[in-house]
């Protein structure tokens, strides 16, 4: 059990190691999620524009 505590303790540097890992995770996950969110949003938009445009083209 205590090995888990030792693991998290990181030889006294717990704060630095874990915060830097947390920050990295936040930043990298952030960019990934933001990109996929943007992808979802723009997909609908582009599809809508494409259909709209197609309709206008056939008119």
């Amino acid at each position: 059990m205590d090995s888990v505590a030792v693991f998290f303790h990181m030889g006294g540097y717990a704060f630095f190691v874990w915060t830097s890992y947390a920050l990295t995770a936040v930043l990298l996950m952030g960019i990934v999620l933001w990109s996929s969110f943007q992808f979802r949003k723009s997909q609908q938009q582009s599809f809508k524009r494409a259909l709209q445009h197609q309709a206008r083209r056939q008119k």
Partner: protein
Amino acid sequence: MYRVAGILSPLLAGACVLSLLIGLYLGLVVAPADYEQGDSYRIIFIHVPAAWMSMFVYMVMAISSAVFLIWRLKIADVVAVASAPIGAAFTAVALLTGSFWGKPMWGTWWIWDARLTSELVLLFLYLGYIALRGAMETQQGAARAAAILAVVGVVNIPIIHFSVEWWNTLHQPASITKFDKPSMHISMLRPLLIMVFAFQTLYFFNLMVRVRTLILEREARSSWVAALAGERTNG
């Protein structure tokens, strides 16, 4: 190209998650503590890959910008635009982890070390690229102007790095560059390489997603997007 990106991205995502888990496990649990820096050196497993990736992504941007300028390949510009924010994120990560690593070792959050300073200048280059992109409204013009900036930037990176290194040795003649990797025992090196691979797959996965977004936006008028839209809505 849109389809290729579509097929590739789940594969890349899987590879990235897998390698991240292995890398983190090896790096944090298996690798022994460093005799001198104790466990704080474990930050290296994200600092070095991030710093390396920030440089790698700028190279990709510069090369694809050059290809776009010379052969006018629209897809090359899409890759450059898609990579910029990811590169900037990696640079920010490198800077943050660098300062968090510096705190326990030298007692200050920011030290004007050669590696960190070059990383900071690289961040400004990224921000300049993104700002120029944003400032120019028409699409073709922004593409070529930003591509020129990326190429000019990449020519300057070695010069900036050389001058920062020289400047660093001038003002702190005694110390070696603090960020030289400590003599890496194999058990430390393996996780580091795995983490670099993990960051690579993360970059390419994210790149594929952003490339698909941009392709859709730019080709919205063409018929194949409408066909795709037709499938998707009633499919």
